[in-house]
């Protein structure tokens, strides 16, 4: 049993900093392995194909993790996340088309794209969140669908977004090496958000919003803030998507695409960023690797989803977060002391 030792608790800050460093090193090693695999062309002629899968996995991870901020930590379901993704995709694509011949180095242009995509989606997030978040539960869920559909219809009608036709010829800026680090940074920021007073507040709202407001929390503010941050990252994912696919059409970002992300969040585990990362990576890579079964992908998803709902409603990972420190401690035979909840750390890639 844990006895409340003051010094024990205070030591934790130092150990947390060490944990951050360890995780960072682990990510670097993971990235290094992938880079060597790709550079040495271990997969031969299929190298670029595997790189493509990894890129897809990266932006899916950002989408799923950002949706998990809402679903897992705030406890509200959004079925319109693809709408924010499309805002990011189209706004950044318009920017690159505009700056195509300006001679800006492509890395700088890429960063500008991410920023513009994220900010545009974030602003949309505020515009949607302020009215929509007055609702909760299934009504909120259905209103997010409505907003996403309105965004889709708008993009189908605006001339600047292709007027309902495919917007093609977008410069290909997203490559795996950049996208990987963007993903790492995005997930890290989300993790830091969740493990701070902000995340604590948002989780309290999820547990009981009446008690939260009776504890002096401005419920609306924190909900809109989280919604906006979630939309911001969806916009970044959209910007990556647009500059990876090089051709986008508004109808791609439909209800079914949103539902796919929500499915991945729930199967991975609501309230676990580890679950989101692993779930999204796995679920987006697997069907690519088994092309001949691609028709059955969503069918399988839906069956898994029903089974998860019946047998483990919190998802495969639940609220579990992978902790490298814990694993190392166990390997070294040290007993894991202290609490679990406050010292969990996540490792972004595994």
């Amino acid at each position, binding site marked *: 049993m844990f006895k409340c030792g003051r010094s024990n608790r205070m030591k934790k800050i130092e150990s947390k900093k060490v944990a951050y460093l360890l995780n960072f090193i682990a990510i670097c090693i993971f990235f290094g392995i992938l880079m060597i695999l790709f550079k040495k062309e271990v997969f031969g002629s299929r190298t670029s194909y595997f790189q493509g899968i990894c890129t897809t996995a990266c932006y899916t991870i950002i989408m799923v993790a950002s949706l998990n901020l809402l679903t897992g930590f705030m406890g509200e379901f959004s079925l319109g996340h693809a709408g924010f993704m499309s805002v990011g995709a189209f706004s950044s694509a318009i920017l690159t088309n505009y700056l195509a011949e300006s001679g800006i180095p492509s890395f700088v242009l890429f960063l500008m794209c991410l920023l513009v995509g994220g900010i545009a989606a974030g602003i949309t997030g505020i515009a949607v969140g302020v009215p929509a978040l007055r609702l909760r539960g299934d009504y909120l869920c259905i209103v997010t669908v409505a907003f996403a559909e309105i965004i889709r219809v708008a993009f189908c009608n605006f001339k600047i977004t292709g007027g309902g036709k495919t917007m093609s010829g977008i410069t290909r800026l997203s490559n795996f090496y950049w996208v990987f680090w963007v993903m790492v940074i995005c997930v890290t920021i989300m993790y830091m958000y969740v493990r701070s*007073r902000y995340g604590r507040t948002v989780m309290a709202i999820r547990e009981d919003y009446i008690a939260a407001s009776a*504890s002096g929390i401005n419920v609306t503010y924190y909900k809109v803030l989280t919604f906006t941050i979630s939309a911001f990252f969806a916009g970044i994912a959209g910007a990556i998507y647009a500059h990876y696919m090089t051709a986008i059409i508004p109808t791609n970002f439909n209800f079914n695409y949103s539902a796919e992300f929500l499915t991945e969040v729930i199967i991975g585990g609501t309230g676990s960023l580890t679950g989101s990362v692993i779930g999204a990576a796995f679920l987006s890579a697997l069907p690519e690797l088994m092309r001949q079964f691609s028709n059955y992908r969503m069918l399988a998803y839906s069956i898994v989803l029903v089974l998860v709902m019946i047998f483990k409603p919190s998802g495969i990972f639940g609220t579990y977060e992978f902790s490298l420190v814990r694993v190392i401690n166990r390997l070294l035979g040290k007993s894991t002391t202290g609490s679990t909840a406050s010292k969990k750390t996540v490792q972004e890639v595994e």
Partner: protein
Amino acid sequence: MGAATEPVLKAVHLGISFGGLKAVSDFSIEIGESELFGLIGPNGAGKTTVFNLLTGVYQPTEGGFYLNGEKMNGKKTHQVVEAGIARTFQNIRLFKKMTALENVKVAMNMKMKYNLVDAIFRTPTYWAEEKAVEEKALELLKVVHLEDKADTVAENLPYGQQRRLEIARALATHMKLLLLDEPAAGMNPTETAELLDIISVIRNHFKISVLLIEHDMSLVMKICEKIQVIDYGETIAFGTPEEIANHPRVIEAYLGKDEEENEC
């Protein structure tokens, strides 16, 4: 009544009606510093509605209320809490899946200053403030005798401890007035005695006023300095415990009629 100083809470002719039905009417009260005030009445008398009015859950349709002279009408719940009125709930409302420590930390959020940038980059401000909050939260848990349960998930605590955790959470908001909604409901005599202990420590140590709703007359009689009795949303008696005990209308309200089991 402390005539010279401003009362901590002053409510004047407070009233609310739902669809023409008056739930509370003409409710006036004055609570001085460190005073322990009891609000009693039969089931369905409107006690919890009074609490909901005083915490901004409902907006009064008549009258107003003031905290240290500051007008509270029209404020939202979180603003009222920020001004200094905190409460507990009759049917415990904890953040069930969070630990006891986290429950208390949540209520300290509004006093915390670090911003998103501090949180994301884990600046020294972040670490310093998180550390301070942790220490403070542990202290508050100690006040309600829960320091060894800091890392227990709230829903796993026994009933009596959950009630105490709710008090610790309310304390974390730095309030001047604490509203306790039937804090001893469902407790056994030992737990009730411990609770009374805690309430008196809170009063003396933190210098706050307490307004207490309680069903158990004997408990109220024992600890409260002043008691107000309401029935059908109206104040029917006010005074010291002795005065209340012999008040004819109180006896009538409690014994004269059978009330339906319907708390509002």
